[in-house]
């Protein structure tokens, strides 16, 4: 019996240790999160300083921002001078993908700038639709006034959105679209939508490509994942524009699933089959850069390559001249606009139609005048 008591005592002690260590771990996590926030702030500040410096030299960028602001003001109106207390949540797709990590930073910077507290959350891993929904379901019962959602696919967040509707939490859809038809069927609604017109991205690229190929020729598309809204939209915008002129022949649309090595192999196959190929539109920069590599390896020159996203690598390639152009928009302004809409919704305003973000094509002609664009 004594032995048994000793075991019990030991167990209690271990338990005490363990029990204490669990919360402290979380507190630590919290302090660290605060620290990261502080770091982000510092970074944003330096970035802002850099932006100011760049704006001083680059009139093009100044002009772009001015155009952007007036286009956004036409669509959503002016930011209210003062507004009531508000707490905003954002559910993004993943924090293991650089694009969304950057969006998180932009959200937090925008929140700081507008004086709106914002929490950015996500599921555990990219593509985990169920855990993203769990996060939104939990947030719907918390004290958020507005939640901005970017769903992994068209339907996975629908039960969460309906719960927000029931709890009186306003929902804004940013970026990848919620399937509004399915949402309506399930009895829910979105309070506002801000997104990028994917077809316009494809169309703008097609127009620039046609301008650079006045004699016509064969062109091809490297698309992303079949069924993904961004990929389908961009491809449709591009092919519709290209097909409107008989001088141009669309020889192939290949799905490369956003994957560099698939795009590399596809480009090699394309150029072997169509040695006269004049241009390739890739639905993101990762695939575009792979296409550049593949053409380099084959020793082919003079094929125009376009991408989407304007990543740092794409910027370097465009400056070098190996890539022709990339579609871009300002993530900083994107998140700012979304937060402004959140504030306006909370003040009782409403948005009847979708808000589209103004887009910019960065190409070999204007890339050097775009220092400071982000």
């Amino acid at each position: 019996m004594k032995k048994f008591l000793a075991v019990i005592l030991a167990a209690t002690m271990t338990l005490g240790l363990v029990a204490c260590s669990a919360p402290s771990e979380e507190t630590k996590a919290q302090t660290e999160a605060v620290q990261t926030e502080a770091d982000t702030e510092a970074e944003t500040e330096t970035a802002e300083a850099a932006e100011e410096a760049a704006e001083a030299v680059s009139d093009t960028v100044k002009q772009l921002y001015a155009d952007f602001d007036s286009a956004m003001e036409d669509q959503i109106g002016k930011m209210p001078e003062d507004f009531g207390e508000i707490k905003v949540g954002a559910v993004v797709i993943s924090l293991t993908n650089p694009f969304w990590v950057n969006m998180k930073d932009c959200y937090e910077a925008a929140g700081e700038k507008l004086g709106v507290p914002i929490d950015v959350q996500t599921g555990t891993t990219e593509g985990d639709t169920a855990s993203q929904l769990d996060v939104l379901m939990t947030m719907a019962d918390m004290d958020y006034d507005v939640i901005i959602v970017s769903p992994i696919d068209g339907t996975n967040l629908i039960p969460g959105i309906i719960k927000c509707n029931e709890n009186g939490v306003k929902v804004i859809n940013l970026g990848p679209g919620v399937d509004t038809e399915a949402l309506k069927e399930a009895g829910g609604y979105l309070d506002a939508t801000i997104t990028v017109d994917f077809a316009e991205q494809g169309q703008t690229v097609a127009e620039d490509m046609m301008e650079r190929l006045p004699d016509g020729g064969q062109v091809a598309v490297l698309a992303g994942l079949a069924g993904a809204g961004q990929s389908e939209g961009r491809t449709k915008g591009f092919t519709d524009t290209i097909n409107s002129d008989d001088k141009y022949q669309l020889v192939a649309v290949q799905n490369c699933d956003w994957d560099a090595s698939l795009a590399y192999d596809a480009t090699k196959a394309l150029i072997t089959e169509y040695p006269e190929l004049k241009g390739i539109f890739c639905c993101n920069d990762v695939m575009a850069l792979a296409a550049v590599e593949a053409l380099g390896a084959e020793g082919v020159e003079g094929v125009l390559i376009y991408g989407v996203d304007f990543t740092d690598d794409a910027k370097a390639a465009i400056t070098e001249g190996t890539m022709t152009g990339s579609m871009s928009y300002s993530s900083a302004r994107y998140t700012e606009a979304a937060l402004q809409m959140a504030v306006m919704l909370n003040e009782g305003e409403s948005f009847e139609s979708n808000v589209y973000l103004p887009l910019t094509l960065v190409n070999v002609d204007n890339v050097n005048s775009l220092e400071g664009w982000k």
Partner: protein
Amino acid sequence: MNYLRREISAPALLLCFCLAVSVFLSIETVSFYSWKNVVNILEANSYRMILAVGMMCVIASGAIDLSVGSIMSFSAVCMAKALKAELPVELCILIGILTGTLMGAVNGSLIYLTRINALIITLASSYMYRGLSLIVTQGIPITKLPESFRAIGCGDIFGMESGVTAAFVITALMVPLFFFMKWGSYVSSLGGNAEALKRCGVKTWFYRISVFAMMGALASVSGIIVTARLNSAEANAGLNMEMDAICAVIMGGTALHGGKGNLFGTVIAVFLMGLIRNGLTIMSVSSYYQQFITGAMLLMAVVIAEFRERKARIG
């Protein structure tokens, strides 16, 4: 006395863990301590619980199943295809469950016939089943399923999604099946000493195949719940779910070498992991920390269990 100590200690430890986390979250946050949030936690963990309960039987039988995530996905895809073909909803659900059971039975038969380690067989089959899902769907999610299906898969029972009731019913049924019936003791004995069991004249093939078939059936049930919640059957559903389930089973005090299962510990471990996920969301802590904390807890749980067992062996 010894028996009690061994059986109760792992769940008791986890339960105290749960309490500590709950008390901490109730003090630190406003939203945690509410009925709504309890419902959230139950709903978010119902399908994980179903998987973990099945996985406990598989691990107790001395095997492991890495293909449950893929079975979830493929059986859900088959069911969604049937739903799209406008077959009666009940029949579609049956198709889903039968597909899962069949895939599980294939796993079990291969393991029994080839005598190759279950880890290898189910690793191979997990790729094959996931591949089948991708081939059938071509990577495009099957969405907009009929409302009558969703009413069954995630409709309201006792003020929460039906998945929660399903999870508790399955767990409750597992108690007699695993602890008081022949099936449970033979399955455990498979993990303890399969050779001895065979020499006693027991048809070991039946128990090996049936435990995997049951795992397959449970995986398909949890696939149905996930599909109904998301209103979409997709090839990527259930990714890494097998690891969550294995983690909960081991944390709950079932040893990887089998021979004995700890159902109560498994259930508590599922909820502990769910509590932590929920707590991190409520406290707005980045999801980066979640994986680290889960791993650290698993490590702590197995180390404590190992030392306890060693001590029990020595005296």
